[in-house]
């Protein structure tokens, strides 16, 4: 009998594949997410390792020293002479000072220049072959204005540039040359030797026998690893850094999986309700409730299996596609692996998740009274009141959430530096809040609906019918709106958090790099005539001079500057120039002086009014910003000049720098712009990744909106028929149903907004980084509006079906 029941159910899946899609879609998306995140991590780790790796693929054996002693040229020669060694390269990176330009360095990197152990590619000229010769990468060639044939002046002499190469993107100005040249230039020897073996067998023998060759007396402590092991160590290192990012992503993925489980449960309940007659018929002809439960669980497992496999395959395909797209866009990424074990794990997880999701609906459906076979289904979810148990659970969770937040706020200012336990407490509060929302949902939905539907009800009959339709089944509305709320809350929290973070980083960067370049001039600084000349140069804008002085801050000492914030666009909005007798203090300086805004602070001989306190450091890590008159009394340094490039990009920068060099002879010029572009790119990238992942949570929620609307249409066939009979047009029905779907979205968005913003603020405060609390209203409204529109769009298919309901349906006796 059981087998027969299961067969009936499964053949039902075959006949109505649409239902399989409906029930499996959220699980599929969840599997796609989990497996996709797994692949993305793998790709990101390997791409990072490739980019940062100093070990070429062809390296078979890596010899590296431990401790201070280096390998000598003679030891390197002995390695080269060892049978089985096809090629051996000494690896050394040394830094040499450039003549005339203070604090400017050239990093000289050893590289064979060609062959499998090389990390570079010659672009023009020739690769250096002897002493005093180097090749530079194209960026450095631009920075130092050199090309093949020119010379670079070093403090310790001069090198000739023989060629320009393409090299891995590394910071700073870099030159490449054979190992012995690099070692000689740096006056050093080799911390590491990379070896390519003649054959795999030789590679194994070398690994065991080399230490005898290199160091018969065993005086140098060294490690001998295979190239693969060295690379693996690098990957592991890269992975450690990546994992901090992926921990965050994993959190989002876990939430999405939870959302998928909720949606799957709701969808199964819907699908079983639609099949109530059939289930009741099975009961009427003698199927036991237990048999029905088993059959429905098996159905859930099949759905989970199919959805899991589809999700994993889709993610793998998307992985390949993403890499292909990235490659065509010029970003070199490695192809994803095919991690079979992880894939199977995800599929098993999908089956378990789906079976868990189907359990409650299955037990509910199995209780179908045999009599229901003879009736059409009627509204199941009209009940708005909730049981005492559920009410108590909801209230307890609500109290727990409020309590955790109270404890968190009560513990401020946190004594703990990283705020980890604060965040954990906050996560607990968030989970409790969400639990309370699930439990109390049907009660909460009515007032929220009343609030968000006001314009609909006010201005259109169809709108008020839609509102009535949603309000008539608060349980159904709550089930789906809560999932939408989860997605929206996460998106809102991310946007609010990132907006605060961006403002914070922008401010921090503005302080660290307030202009594109800085020039210190000669020993006497940049004189007034030179400043005037710089102001007149077409390559430069925002030219401003400032001075520094050491000031005592309590028991410590700090830097005071008289920079005029109004002269630089990035500082203009952040700082107001102090008038004589006033000071703007960095947070730490204000703390150690024990002063706040408006109070008097004594800095050495000066007693000043605190005009403002900055959340972090002042410009150039200064402790105090003063007026020029006050700085004079502290003994100001020679003036230094800041300026922005008028032109954009690398060319603009170089032109601007050359102009400064020309107008202020003998000056040192540093490009501050580099730091800025690097940091802003990171934040934008992280936000895009986070929003992309959260978008998938919202996709799951939208699937829920679609299925819930479909159930609503199914349950209210009679009502829709009646409205058609009374004169509601097909278009009117479509509008009504799509509006209902939109309302589910609107309720969820409202709840998500109300929960997301405060939690984001709490999280930002708990991190205690001095990040400002912002409310990016425009972005949030866009999110809410987009969500309502997407939800309404999800209702279009059920709306289209509803419009086909014949008015005769109203006359069918129930």
């Amino acid at each position, binding site marked *: 009998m059981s087998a027969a029941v299961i067969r009936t159910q499964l053949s039902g899946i075959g006949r109505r594949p649409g239902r399989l899609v409906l029930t499996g879609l959220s699980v599929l998306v969840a599997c796609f997410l989990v497996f996709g995140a797994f692949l993305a991590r793998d790709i990101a780790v390997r791409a990072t390792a490739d980019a940062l790796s100093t070990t070429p693929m062809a390296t078979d054996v890596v010899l590296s020293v431990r401790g201070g002693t280096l390998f000598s040229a003679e030891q390197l020669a002995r390695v080269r002479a060892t049978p089985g060694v096809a090629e051996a390269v000494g690896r050394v990176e040394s830094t040499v000072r450039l003549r005339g330009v203070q604090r400017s360095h050239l990093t000289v990197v050893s590289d064979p220049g060609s062959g499998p152990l090389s990390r570079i590619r010659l672009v023009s000229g020739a690769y250096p072959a002897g002493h005093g010769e180097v090749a530079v990468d194209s960026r450095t060639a631009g920075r130092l204005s050199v090309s093949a044939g020119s010379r670079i002046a070093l403090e310790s002499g001069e090198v000739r540039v023989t060629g320009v190469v393409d090299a891995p993107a590394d910071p700073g100005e870099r030159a490449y040359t054979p190992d012995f040249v690099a070692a000689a230039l740096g006056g050093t020897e080799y911390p590491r030797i990379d070896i390519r073996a003649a054959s795999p067998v030789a590679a194994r023998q070398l690994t065991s026998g080399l230490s005898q060759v290199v160091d018969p007396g065993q005086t140098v402590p060294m490690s001998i690893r295979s190239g693969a092991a060295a690379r693996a160590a690098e990957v592991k290192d890269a992975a450690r850094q990546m994992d901090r990012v992926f921990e965050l992503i994993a959190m989002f993925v876990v939430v999405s999986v939870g959302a998928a489980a909720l949606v799957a449960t709701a969808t199964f309940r819907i699908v079983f309700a639609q099949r109530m007659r059939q289930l009741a018929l099975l009961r009427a002809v003698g199927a036991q409730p237990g048999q029905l439960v088993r059959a429905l669980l098996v159905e859930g497992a099949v759905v989970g299996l199919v959805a899991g496999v589809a999700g994993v395959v889709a993610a793998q395909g998307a992985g390949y596609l993403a890499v292909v797209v990235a490659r065509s866009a010029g970003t070199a990424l490695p192809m994803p692996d095919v991690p079979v074990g992880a894939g199977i794990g995800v599929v098993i997880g999908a089956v378990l998740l789906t079976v868990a999701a189907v359990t409650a609906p299955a037990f509910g459906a199995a209780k179908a009274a045999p009599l229901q076979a003879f009736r059409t289904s009627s509204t199941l979810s009209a009940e708005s009141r909730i049981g005492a148990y559920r009410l108590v659970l909801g209230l307890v969770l609500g109290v727990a959430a409020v309590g955790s937040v109270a404890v968190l706020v009560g513990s401020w200012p946190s004594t703990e530096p990283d705020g980890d336990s604060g965040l954990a407490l906050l996560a607990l509060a968030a989970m409790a809040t969400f639990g309370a929302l699930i439990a109390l949902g049907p009660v909460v939905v009515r007032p929220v609906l009343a609030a968000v539907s006001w314009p609909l009800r006010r201005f259109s009959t169809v709108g008020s*019918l839609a509102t009535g339709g949603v309000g008539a089944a608060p349980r159904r509305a709550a089930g789906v709106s809560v999932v939408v709320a989860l997605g929206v809350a996460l998106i809102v929290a991310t946007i609010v958090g990132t907006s605060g973070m961006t403002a914070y980083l922008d401010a921090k960067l503005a302080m660290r790099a307030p202009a594109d370049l800085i020039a210190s001039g000669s020993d006497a600084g940049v004189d007034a005539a030179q400043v005037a000349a710089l102001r007149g140069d077409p390559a430069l804008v925002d030219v401003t001079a400032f001075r520094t002085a050491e000031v005592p801050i309590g028991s410590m000492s700090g830097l005071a500057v008289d920079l005029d914030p109004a002269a630089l666009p990035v500082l203009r909005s952040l700082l107001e120039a102090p008038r004589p007798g006033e000071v703007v203090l960095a947070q730490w300086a204000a703390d150690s002086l024990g002063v706040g805004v408006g109070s008097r602070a004594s800095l050495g001989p000066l007693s000043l009014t605190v005009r403002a306190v900055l959340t972090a450091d002042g410009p150039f890590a200064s402790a105090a910003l003063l007026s020029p008159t006050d700085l004079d009394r502290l003994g100001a340094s020679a003036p230094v000049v800041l300026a922005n490039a008028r032109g954009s990009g690398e060319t603009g920068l170089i032109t601007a720098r050359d102009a400064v060099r020309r107008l202020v002879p003998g000056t040192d010029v540093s490009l501050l712009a580099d730091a800025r572009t690097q940091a802003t790119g990171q934040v934008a990238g992280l936000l895009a990744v986070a929003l992309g992942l959260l978008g998938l949570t919202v996709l799951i929620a939208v699937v829920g909106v679609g299925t819930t609307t479909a159930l609503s249409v199914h349950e209210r066939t009679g009502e829709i028929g009646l409205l058609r009979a*009374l*004169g509601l047009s097909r278009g009117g029905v479509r509008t009504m149903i799509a509006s209902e779907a939109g309302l589910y979205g609107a309720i969820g968005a409202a709840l998500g907004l109300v929960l997301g913003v405060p939690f984001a603020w709490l999280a930002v405060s708990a991190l205690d980084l001095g990040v400002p609390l912002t409310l990016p209203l425009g972005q949030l409204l866009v999110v809410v509006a987009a969500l309502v529109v997407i939800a309404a769009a999800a209702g279009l298919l059920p709306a289209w079906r509803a419009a086909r309901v*014949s008015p*005769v349906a109203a*006359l069918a006796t129930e």
Partner: protein
Amino acid sequence: MVFAVEARALVKVYGKGDAGVRALDGVSVGFERGGFTAIMGPSGSGKSSLLHCLAGLDAVTSGQVLVGGVDITALSDRELTGVRRDRIGFVFQAFNLLPQLTAARNITLPLDLAGRRADRELMAGVVEVLGLADRLDHRPAELSGGQQQRVALARALVARPEVVFADEPTGNLDSRSGLEVLRFLRTSVRSFGQTVVMVTHDPEAAACADRAVLVADGRIVADLPNPSADQLRSLRPPAGAR
């Protein structure tokens, strides 16, 4: 004579080919303005199909239905919806009120859908006659069956339709409430000059009408003015003779 509603050679076939069922087999009948007509017949006789077709709820296979002289079988769905909204009122066996709306909003629903305002005087008169004045703020769940059916009746009357179709309006009511509803239907005919067409299988109910049309096997088999219950009972075909 101008009929409020008229059927001409109406044929309705459900299904296709051999499996087709001929529910209406060439029915021609007219309903006078201000008349109260009962359509009677056993289950499966075609009386419900006749009502659906007359009311523009279902498409006909062939023939014509004229409502106020307009052939509604030639109309598009959009036009037909308008005809139902503006010119036809319904009273159903299962009351069919929207549970989320108050009695007052249920009554004005067809007018709201049309974007028209209710005629205050007519509304007040109808509500007064039906004894609903103190029930207007209640939702359907708070009303008795008889009250719900009176709300449905008010909804049908307040838009001043060409014709009110009532489908077994007493079927879900106890005999006292049923009688009340029938009395109100009569009142609406007398006081408001309303045309009413009622489908029923109850001879007592049909006896309240001015005229009874008997349907069997998709055809009209008898048409009686001022019928009595006994007369109708004697005309009922013996059980099993569908």
